[in-house]
């Protein structure tokens, strides 16, 4: 095979253009950086052992924070990054904002969780675990490498629930090197498979550097979303924003949300005349004859008002309805379905 003529590239920084500050930081490596990464290849049995020691030290903690995201009709992976249960995953795993999913911990404990924001163009997403651990302890989590100092050739390891959750097996670990680096994609040669999506990629100190996204046809081609994509969009994702119009998640269209009831004008609101079978309204317990007074705080003084509010909402959006049934006031919460 012909070798590229270009200079060996293991010391090339992540981005093509970098300020001198970054170059300086390369010259003065941060304390604790993994020394074998400074070599193009391990040069001795000692280097090989150093890689092993780093893995043995880092994997146990990384493993307890690596979770399976059960979607019902399939599964992906994710990693907890805060003691209050915030999970980083891929957008094509979370698939939307405000969705209910189940997070499965390493020991098999299943916890309720809800998807937060996502970036549909880069395949980044956040999920919040909303159910406490049975022992009430903080969630196990890993540190994010916010220094963004990973570079081509760095040794890394992947974890993930390959092919789905398997308690007897546990999360599968794989070693690799960073073989390609671009703004919104890292490529490694540690093989991933279905079910790994959304799982974590770590540096040799056990800090999170990426989230598994997609693979090529050959075993050695595996893509990850760099953590920088997450940190750049962090606040927006925390606020449950659906970012971008990429193909990793389908943006719910406004006005396409489905409530599933028919109404007529009435005194003090609108009255339910029919509830669709298995509709979101039916699931939330809304019944024929209920008087709907307000929707998300807005007064429902006509059927047109309901329609105009719904026109601005999409599938997955949350509704709070104040209703009156048999003279009693109630609040009903539900999520719009897909039409």
């Amino acid at each position, binding site marked *: 095979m012909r070798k590229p003529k270009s200079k060996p590239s293991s010391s090339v920084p992540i981005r093509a253009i970098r300020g001198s500050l970054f170059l300086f930081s390369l010259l003065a490596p941060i304390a604790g950086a993994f020394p074998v990464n400074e070599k193009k290849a391990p040069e001795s049995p000692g280097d090989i052992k150093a890689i092993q020691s780093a893995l043995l030290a880092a994997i146990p903690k990384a493993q307890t924070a690596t979770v399976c995201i059960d979607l019902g009709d*399939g599964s*992906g992976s994710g990693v907890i990054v805060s003691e209050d249960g915030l999970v980083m995953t891929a957008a094509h795993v979370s698939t939307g904002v405000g969705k209910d999913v189940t997070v499965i911990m390493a020991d098999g404990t299943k916890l309720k969780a809800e998807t937060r924001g996502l970036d549909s163009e880069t395949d980044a997403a956040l999920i919040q675990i909303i159910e406490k651990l049975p022992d009430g302890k903080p969630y196990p989590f890993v540190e994010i490498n916010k220094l963004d100092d990973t570079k081509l050739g760095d040794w890394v390891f992947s974890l993930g629930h390959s*092919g789905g959750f398997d308690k007897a097996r546990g999360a599968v670990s794989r070693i690799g090197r960073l073989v390609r680096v671009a703004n919104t994609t890292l490529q490694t040669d540690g093989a991933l498979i279905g079910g790994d*999506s959304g799982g974590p990629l770590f540096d040799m100190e056990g800090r999170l550097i990426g989230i*598994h996204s*997609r693979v090529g046809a050959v075993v*050695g*081609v595996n893509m990850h979303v760099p953590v920088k994509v997450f940190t750049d969009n962090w606040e927006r994702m925390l606020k449950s924003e659906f970012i971008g119009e990429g193909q990793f998640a389908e943006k719910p269209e406004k006005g396409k949300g489905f409530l599933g009831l028919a109404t007529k004008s009435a005194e003090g609101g609108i009255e339910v005349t029919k509830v669709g079978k298995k509709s979101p309204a039916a699931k939330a317990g809304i019944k024929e004859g209920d008087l709907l007074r307000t929707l998300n705080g807005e007064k429902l003084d006509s059927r047109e008002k309901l329609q105009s509010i719904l026109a601005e909402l999409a599938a997955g959006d949350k509704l709070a309805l104040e209703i009156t049934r048999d003279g009693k006031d109630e609040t009903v919460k539900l999520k719009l379905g897909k039409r």
Partner: protein
Amino acid sequence: MKRSNLSSASVSLAFAVALAVPAFAQQSLETNFRTTGDAVLAAFVPQRQVIQKSSAVIYDGRKEIAYGTVISADGYLLTKASVVEGVGKIDVRVDKESFKDAKVVMTDPRWDVALLKIEATDLTPVVFAPDSKLPRGTWVVVNGVTSRTNRRVMAGIISADAREIPAEGGAVLGVTLKETKKGLTVEEVSKDSGAEKAGMKKGDILITIAGKPLKEIAALGKLLAKMKSGTDVKVTLLRDGKQSELDVKLSARGDLFRVVSRNDMMSGDFSNRRSGFPRVIQHDVLGASITMGGPVLDLEGRAVGMNIARANRAETYAIPVEELRELAEGMVKQVAATATQ
């Protein structure tokens, strides 16, 4: 290049992604320095020397079909049984030497292991590690590609907890049955199944299985659910009015009737038999399926296991050294006992 999303839940997105892959700048690590590259593997010299001497290459004619683990100086080796089964003439290469007409002395279907014998006197057997209790992240070294004279290595790490791999889809005889007035009648015998190998034929009527009389398919299913693939079961059947008894080796349903999953589609060349093992250790060295049967070494160059199945794109199984050692010693002892009878 085709790229696909990994979540089985988003199949529809799988191939759309091909268009979205960003154009990479020239920041690509040369092949030589990748995990499977020569420059990296050059650091595994001591282990390569063991692989050179103790990992055999098994041929069907000129075609490599498996690797083998040398377990004695006088020519015994272990390999993956289902790969050498039915091969007319097995040739073996150990180190630089070639050995013709290896004999399959014995097989253990539960573990899918065959004991081979070649005419040799001074082979270097593997040294067994004391145990296979290796945490995730421990290096393992196996036989990678090979030439006539040189074995090369591939390295990876222990990936998962040791465990049983149940037979995919449970244990089956490998026949399609019909409930008739006469009893359970064989409609079809599956290719490569234990039933076919035992000589079962269309029209045979099953009378008993494992000594139990059977008249319903459901009852057979219940009985087989308690059994393991790779084990033998006694079948009495009626053919042309005559009763006969056969030993039928149970197969894993998933190995006989492969339902190709999306993960299989992205897995390339995986082992045909990849389930129904009493216990395995797992690593991430993803050689071709023909690289099964060779030893799995630790950094000390000791065998911690023997590769038994490339399960998929991301997982390879090996028989742990505890059981491997037992198999090796047990089989050789049994052969010796038979020889002196």
